[in-house]
C-alpha cells in the first residue's frame, strides 16, 4: 500500500533466525482495513507456529486525533483465546515509523534474543546480557547500547522469563494493555522484547484534504465533555471510583498523553521526590508513570496506602507483572501488605479481572467516560465491543474512544479513503469487526 504505510510486512522466524518481508497489498487493506483485523489475518496464516503479531492501525501515527495506538495480537496463554491489546504511549508511533506496518514473530528461539527494528531493518539480536534483568534495566541497556534515548521498547521481565501467567509485555518502563499474559508467550519464545526506532515518512494520498478534515474533527473534539479533565484520577471519578483522586493527589507530579491523544491518560507520581518539583530532579528514578487503571484500583481495595500501592505498581512493572492480575490474585490469597504481595509474586497464577468478551484488553474501562454515548444506553456491552474493535482497527487510543463521541466511524472511514485512495466502505468495516469475533 502506497499511502499511510511503510508497505511492508515483516515475518520473523525465531526457530530458524530467518527474517523475510512481504508487501502490504491494497487488497488486504480493502478487505480487512488494518490493525487488529490484519493482525488476526496474519496470525491465521502462521497459526501453526504460535505467532505474536504486532501491527499498526490504518490511521496510526497520523494527525487524525488520538491515532496513537498499535496492536499486539496472539493466543493468550492464560485465557486460550486469540486476543488483542493496545500498544500506546509513543511506542505505537515508533512502530509506525520504524519501517514495517505488521510484524509476525513465529516459532521460538533456543537462546534469549530481542528484535531490533530500525529504519526498515530488523535484526534478531542476542539478549543474553539482559536475560534475568528487569524491564527498566533492559530498556536502559538497549537505549545505551544503541546510543539513542528515544528507542521505544516492548519488554518482559522476570515474570515472562519464568513463565508466569501474570507476565506482561511492558512498554519502555511502564505497564501496558497486555492483560492476557502475552509476556509469558514472549518468555516461551525466549524473546526478551522488541526495540523500535525510525525516521520514516508516511505519504498521504490527498494530504491537504486529510489534514483539513483532521483539524475539523479535532475542533469538534475540543468542545467535548472531557475538556478540563486530566490524568487517571479524573478517569476514576468518571468510573464512579470517587475516592481515588483525593487518595492519589498528594503524589501526583504531572499528567501526560499518548501520541496525539487529546486526553492525558497517564499520570506520573513522585515517590522519592517532592511532587511539586518542576525542575529536573537529580534523582534518576523518582517515581512511576501510571498507565493502567485496574492495578492501582486493586491495590487500593486491598487497603494499601497510595504510596505503597504506587510502589507496588513499580515493582510489578519492573518484574513485568500485570499489576491488575497481581492485585486480583493477592486478594484471593489474602495478601494485603506490600511485602507479602511482593514475596508471593512468583507463586501467583491465573488471570486477572476481565470484562467484555475476552477479545479486547480489559485495560480500557467498559463504560463511557465523561460523555454520553446513545448506543451505550441501549446496549452497553455491545457498544463497548464495537467501540474497541473500531479503535483497534484504525489505531485509535482505546480509552479515548470511550470518552469522545465526537470520534465517529464515518469520519474514520472517510479519512481512510482520503489518506489512502482505497475504497473502504461501512460494509467493509462491519465485515472486519465481525471477523474479529469469528
Amino acid at each position: 500500500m502506497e499511502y499511510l504505510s511503510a508497505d511492508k510486512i515483516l515475518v520473523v522466524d525465531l526457530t530458524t533466525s530467518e527474517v523475510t518481508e512481504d508487501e502490504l497489498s491494497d487488497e488486504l487493506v480493502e478487505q480487512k482495513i488494518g490493525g487488529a483485523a490484519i493482525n488476526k489475518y496474519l496470525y491465521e496464516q502462521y497459526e501453526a507456529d504460535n505467532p505474536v503479531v504486532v501491527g499498526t492501525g490504518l490511521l496510526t501515527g497520523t494527525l487524525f486525533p488520538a491515532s496513537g495506538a498499535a496492536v499486539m495480537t496472539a493466543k493468550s496463554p492464560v485465557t486460550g483465546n486469540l486476543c488483542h491489546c493496545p500498544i500506546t504511549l509513543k511506542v505505537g508511533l515508533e512502530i509506525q515509523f520504524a519501517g514495517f506496518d505488521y510484524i509476525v514473530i513465529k516459532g521460538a528461539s533456543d537462546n534469549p534474543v530481542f528484535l531490533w527494528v530500525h529504519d526498515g531493518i530488523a535484526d534478531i539480536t542476542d539478549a543474553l546480557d539482559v536475560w534475568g534483568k528487569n524491564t527498566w534495566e533492559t530498556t536502559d541497556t538497549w537505549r545505551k547500547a544503541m546510543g539513542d534515548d528515544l528507542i521505544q521498547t516492548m519488554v518482559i521481565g522476570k515474570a515472562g522469563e519464568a513463565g508466569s501467567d501474570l507476565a506482561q509485555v511492558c512498554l519502555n518502563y511502564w505497564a501496558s494493555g497486555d492483560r492476557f499474559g502475552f509476556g509469558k508467550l514472549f518468555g516461551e519464545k525466549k524473546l526478551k522484547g522488541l526495540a523500535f526506532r525510525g525516521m520514516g515518512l508516511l505519504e498521504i494520498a490527498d494530504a491537504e484534504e486529510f489534514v483539513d478534515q483532521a483539524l475539523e474533527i479535532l475542533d469538534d473534539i475540543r468542545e467535548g465533555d472531557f475538556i478540563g479533565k486530566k490524568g487517571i484520577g479524573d478517569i476514576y471519578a468518571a468510573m464512579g471510583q470517587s475516592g481515588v483522586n483525593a487518595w492519589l493527589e498528594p503524589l501526583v507530579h504531572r499528567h501526560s498523553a499518548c501520541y496525539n491523544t487529546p486526553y492525558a491518560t497517564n499520570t506520573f507520581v513522585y515517590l522519592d521526590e517532592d511532587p511539586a518539583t518542576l525542575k529536573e530532579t537529580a534523582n534518576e528514578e523518582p517515581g512511576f508513570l501510571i498507565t493502567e487503571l485496574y492495578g492501582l484500583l486493586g491495590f487500593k481495595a486491598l487497603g494499601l496506602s497510595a504510596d505503597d500501592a504506587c510502589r507496588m505498581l513499580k515493582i510489578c512493572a519492573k518484574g513485568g507483572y500485570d499489576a491488575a492480575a497481581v492485585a486480583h490474585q493477592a486478594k484471593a490469597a489474602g495478601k494485603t501488605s506490600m511485602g507479602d504481595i511482593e514475596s508471593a509474586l512468583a507463586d501467583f497464577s491465573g488471570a486477572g479481572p476481565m470484562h467484555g468478551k475476552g477479545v479486547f484488553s480489559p485495560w480500557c474501562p467498559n463504560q463511557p467516560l465523561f460523555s454520553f454515548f446513545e448506543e451505550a444506553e441501549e446496549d452497553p456491552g455491545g457498544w463497548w465491543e464495537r467501540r474497541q474493535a473500531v479503535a483497534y482497527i484504525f489505531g485509535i487510543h482505546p480509552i479515548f474512544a470511550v470518552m469522545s463521541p465526537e470520534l465517529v466511524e464515518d469520519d474514520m472511514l472517510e479519512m481512510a479513503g482520503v489518506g489512502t485512495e482505497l475504497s473502504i466502505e461501512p460494509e467493509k468495516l462491519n465485515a472486519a469487526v465481525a471477523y474479529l469475533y469469528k
Partner: protein
Amino acid sequence: MGIKIDALKCTGCMACEMACGYHRDDGFALLASCIVAYRTREKKDYFGVIVKEEDELLIARPEGLEVKKLGASEEPSEPAQKADASAKPMLLREACDMCEDMEVGPMCVKFCPVNAISPA
C-alpha cells in the same frame, strides 16, 4: 512574531511535532520539525517543548521559559542536545517560519489539543 508555549499545559503528545513535520514534508514525518516535544528524561517525567527560531532556541521547560541565543560558539543546552537523540540535531533544522505558506496558519498552534501553544 513567533509562538509561545505554556509548558505546564503541555502533555507531551507530540501533535505539534507531527504538525510541523507535515508542514515541512507534506507527509507524516518528524525529521524536519522545528518544534520538538523533548522526552528523553522519561523516568524523571521531565518534558517540555523546544522551538528552533531564526537565531534562538526557545526551550519551554516546566519551570519556565529559556531563550538561548544561537551563537557560533555556543553549545545548545541539555534538553536541546538530547531532544532528538540520534535524529537530526535541532541546530541543523530549519527555523520556524510561522507556517507562512499554510492557509490555516501555524500548524502546531492548530493541532495542539490542549491549547498549550499560541501565537506570541
